[in-house]
């Protein structure tokens, strides 16, 4: 299986290169680097990635509270990038869910109640995936039941699920084996975890 870490946010080029080496060792084939690191750095990372056998993608993260702000941010997006929308308010969540330019919708625990059948229909309409940032779990392990609820939502309504590390340093990366056992410990099949680590990138970028 070809694993993808859809979002890493390295602080420097050296850190990014080390993270890429580790990801390669762990069995990942694709890595998404946050555009905040700079386009020049991403270009050099892409070259290094090619020599390592690792595909490097540009990932733009939108973190907004206001719908108008979100619309503006989406309209300014460049093509060829994976877009992760972190929804912090109900209106932004709905907008990100139905807009096909946003590929992944990252929820926050405050909006859990909004994740129902209608929300799943919106996400299917916009063709967006439900993205869960595993670095949130490292920061606050008490979010484990919330993760469980989100995964259960995705499985119940057939919404595509993607898990990514969101790592800013090498020790925040996640080994696929750990992700598999994490999901097994929640009562899901370990395969669900592995599938969530291998989203169809080409379909997203199309």
């Amino acid at each position: 299986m070809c694993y993808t870490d859809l979002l890493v946010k390295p602080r420097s080029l050296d850190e990014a290169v080390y993270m890429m080496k580790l990801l390669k060792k762990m069995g990942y084939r694709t890595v998404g680097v946050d555009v905040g690191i700079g386009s020049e750095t991403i270009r050099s990372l892409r070259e290094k990635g090619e020599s390592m056998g690792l595909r490097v993608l540009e990932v733009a993260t939108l973190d907004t509270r206001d719908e108008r702000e979100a619309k503006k941010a989406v309209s300014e997006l460049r093509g060829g990038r994976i877009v992760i929308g972190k929804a912090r308010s109900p209106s932004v969540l709905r907008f990100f869910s139905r807009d096909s330019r946003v590929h992944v919708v990252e929820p926050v625990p405050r909006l859990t109640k909004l994740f129902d059948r209608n929300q799943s229909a919106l996400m299917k309409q916009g063709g967006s995936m439900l993205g869960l940032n595993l670095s949130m779990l490292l920061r606050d392990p008490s979010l484990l039941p919330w993760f469980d609820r989100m995964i259960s939502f995705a499985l119940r309504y057939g919404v595509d699920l993607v898990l990514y590390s969101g790592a800013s340093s090498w020790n925040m990366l996640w080994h696929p084996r750990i992700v598999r056992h994490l999901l097994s410990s929640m009562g899901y099949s370990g395969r669900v975890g592995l599938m969530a680590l291998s989203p169809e990138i080409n379909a997203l970028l199309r």
Partner: protein
Amino acid sequence: MGIEEAVYALVIIIALLVLRVFMLGERLRELQASMRSMAEELEVVLKTLKSVEDYYSVQLKIKEHKKKARKRYIVFRVLHARGLSASAIEEELKNVLKKLYGEPFVREAMISLVYYDPVRGKGIVRTKHTCKDRVIAGMGFLRSVNGRKVMVIPIRTAGTIKKAREYI
């Protein structure tokens, strides 16, 4: 046949009918009584069956409880572990699991670091087979030991320590 004889015959028929009805009533009463006693007996049998079922379900539960917990040996590797002691890693792993799943789980899982090579950063953790998944998941939350950045990678799980040592 005269009217008198016909009346006699009718009286006799009526008397026979009354007798028959009376006998049937008696029979019904007897049947009712026997049914009642049968129902009582059935109730006793059902109660006995239920107690037998309860007894066996309790016995099954006791058996399951008494079933010997199988051990699992998880082989792992710690990245950037040079200089870290086995006790520090074990302590940190237990702390992480305590935070995640609580103190009772840590006690139930009987986690113990049975082997650790500080040079290669490889080790073996022993736990119960029922707790394997949660212990491995917990390893993912172990990101620093004594303030140093580390990362734990589970390599393989084995049922015996002999087999686990082969994977190191």
